[in-house]
């Protein structure tokens, strides 16, 4: 099988799984049948996704399919890896979680069936978004991710879940419509200036000709793109759907939304960032991204502190971290871009872990409120230890992975001469640390309510969490060389020149550049 065919199969597999599950009558088949199709779907995506990324990485040659509509390069590899690995781990966690929801009477057979069908559809739309080389397809795919997840967000069909689902679809659809407008402006502009207008739809054709585009039109379109896809990514002030959707969705869905989907929207912003920087330079994109990024970090820091609901705290933390990614992109330079990509990976893993753990808590306490969730250490010790690790990791403490990306961000800010930004970020992130420390102490320690049964959640729920915790610890102690090289290659695509900002060591490179 050729690599192009492999790529098509990678995208088609979860779609076929979704259609197969949807086609089966929910009352005629036991839940195990849906679970089997679900496992095959996530297993297929994991195996084929990692294989294609490995081939792209070792040969250093992009893989294309469907007449260049889809393309796996070093940049999309980062996001395909995230989708494949986190999608599979969270997919495994889903099985005991949904089983618990059925036992507790939160879901019936029809809801279980639609959960597994939409889960695979969600993976399909995200893969398509990450692999798309066609700029309008990128919009179509991001819009499709919203459509595929609305019923996952509203899976419980309660008033609050439906409220969250409505806000999610109306805010994201309207927001992403801005993205469509920006995309169409870029396309129309490129069709006008490219020798072959039929190529104007491909990102790879626009980038080398970015300097020929109309600067005014491109500034307008980039603004629209950041508003549009920034809404989907959860940037302040367009983030309003995010805390509601993340908190009301089943926990595995929250994990996938926060861990992966937000990053897919970031990838589309990155694609347009490359075109815009190539045409009008970095000053304008930097102004927009640094402003929105800083506002997101500062606003979310206080919002995290204020919340009593554990999942809403984690949701605001996503806005905080997407703000950091936007800020790193805005700072630019190889170090800033590398920090943004590293943060996408590390935050993706850490947040997936935390939302899965919030699922453990829900299974044990049937509540997300910190007023009720106390004494986790005596109720479920393994979950408590993992929660402790997750809170520290999310606070970007060493030796966990997010420390590496955040410290790289500080170095990038200093290198670019933004000392004031370092101070603001330092203060805001201290508030985040305080909020997460309080959450960790209140949840883990104290005494559990009398009606909460002691005992760990099923092993199948713990295994993906232990793997995620091990990964963020491993990446924090020593980022594996393939990850470093992969991020370096992706950074080279974004800055449009061969660079290796992380090749030796992110920390040492940062310090060396600051000293210079």
């Amino acid at each position, binding site marked *: 099988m050729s690599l192009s065919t492999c790529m098509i199969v990678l995208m088609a597999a979860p779609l076929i799984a979704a259609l197969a599950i949807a086609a089966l009558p929910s009352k005629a088949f036991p839940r195990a049948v849906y679970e089997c199709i679900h496992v095959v779907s996530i297993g297929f995506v994991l195996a084929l996704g990692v294989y294609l990324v490995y081939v792209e990485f070792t040969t250093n040659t992009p893989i294309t399919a469907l007449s260049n509509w889809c393309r796996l390069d070093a940049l999309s590899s980062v996001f395909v890896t995230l989708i494949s690995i986190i999608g599979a781990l969270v997919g495994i966690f889903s099985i005991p979680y949904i089983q618990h929801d059925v036992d507790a009477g939160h879901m019936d057979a029809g809801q279980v069936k639609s959960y597994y069908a939409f889960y695979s559809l969600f993976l399909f739309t995200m893969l398509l978004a990450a692999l798309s080389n066609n700029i*309008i*397809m990128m*919009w*179509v795919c991001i*819009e*499709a991710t*919203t*459509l595929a997840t*609305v*019923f996952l967000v*509203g899976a419980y*069909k*309660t*008033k*609050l879940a*439906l*409220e*969250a*689902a*409505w*806000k999610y*679809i*109306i805010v994201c*659809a*309207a927001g992403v*419509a801005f993205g*469509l*407008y920006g995309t*169409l*402006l870029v*396309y*129309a*502009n490129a*069709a*006008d200036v490219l020798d072959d*207008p*039929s190529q*104007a*739809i491909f990102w790879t054709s626009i980038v080398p000709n970015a300097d020929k585009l*109309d600067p*005014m*039109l491109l500034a*307008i379109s980039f603004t629209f793109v950041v508003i549009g896809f920034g809404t989907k990514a959860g940037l302040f002030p367009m983030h309003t759907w995010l*805390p*509601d959707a993340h*908190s*009301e969705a089943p926990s595995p869905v929250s994990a996938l939304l926060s861990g992966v989907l937000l990053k897919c929207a970031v990838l589309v912003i990155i694609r347009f960032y490359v075109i815009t920087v190539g045409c009008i330079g970095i000053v304008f994109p930097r102004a927009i991204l640094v402003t929105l990024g800083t506002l997101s970090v500062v606003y979310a820091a206080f*919002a995290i502190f*204020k*919340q009593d609901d554990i999942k*809403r705290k984690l949701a605001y933390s996503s806005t905080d971290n997407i703000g950091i990614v936007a800020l790193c992109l805005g700072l630019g330079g190889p170090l800033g871009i590398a920090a943004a990509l590293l943060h996408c990976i590390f935050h993706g893993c850490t947040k997936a872990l935390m939302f899965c753990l919030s699922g453990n808590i829900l299974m044990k306490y049937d509540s997300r409120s910190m007023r009720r969730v106390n004494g986790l250490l005596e109720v479920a010790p393994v979950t408590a230890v993992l929660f402790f690790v997750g809170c520290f990791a999310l606070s970007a403490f060493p030796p966990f992975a997010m420390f590496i990306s955040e410290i790289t961000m500080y170095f990038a800010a200093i290198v670019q001469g933004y000392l004031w930004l370092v101070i603001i970020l330092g203060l805001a992130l201290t508030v985040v640390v305080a909020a997460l420390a309080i959450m960790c102490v209140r949840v883990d320690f104290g005494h559990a309510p009398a009606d909460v049964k002691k005992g760990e959640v099923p092993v199948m729920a713990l295994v993906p969490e232990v793997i995620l915790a091990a990964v963020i610890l491993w990446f924090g102690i020593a980022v594996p060389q393939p990850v470093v090289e992969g991020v370096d290659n992706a950074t080279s695509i974004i800055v449009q020149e061969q660079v290796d900002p992380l090749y030796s060591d992110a920390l040492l490179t940062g310090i060396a550049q600051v000293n210079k």
Partner: protein
Amino acid sequence: MATGYIIVNLLACVLVVTSTMVVLMRKLRSAAWTYAVQSLVLVCIFITLATTAGSTGLYLWSASAFVTKVVLVPAIILYTIKKIGDTADAELPVKLTPTRCVMLVVAELIVCFVAVLGVELPTAGEVRPALAISLAHFFIGLTCIVSQRNIVKQIFGYCLMENGSHLTLALLAPAAPHIVETGIATDAIFAVIIMAIVAYRIHRVTGSLDAEDLMELKG
């Protein structure tokens, strides 16, 4: 200027009037029918552009826009209203009075005309007024979402935004592949269907279509 482009600019003016009427209509059924008329004007613009530019692709766009925007979207909304029953049209206090709404639309039009003056694309030259209106159309849709309390009415806001983008694409890139237009139209149709299902479910659970009733999740 070619007669065709003059007609396009005139039809664009009719379009902005019909769009404002969609926002102002108090009854959902009337809004759905007005939306169908508004979409028909859009289809007429596509046909005029196709004839003027001699683009066969735009004729295909016109046909698919007729099916999706003039027929399917109003049909989906009317079906949803029928399923919900009489309570769908329950009187809700307005967030924005009709006068203020019209003033806002006028302000949006002025801002968009000024913004479009800076665009130097050759394709934009003869249809600059229509281009400004297409951009304004996008913001009229946003105004509809923000100013309406009835959630089914908010769906029209999204459709108007999408129509604005569609018109911009037709004006600036009439030679775009048909598959692009199909992709956008298909996504939009699915979005409307899913919004309609969620609105129906919300009504079934809360007994209302009032967006103000969906404010429990805060902070």
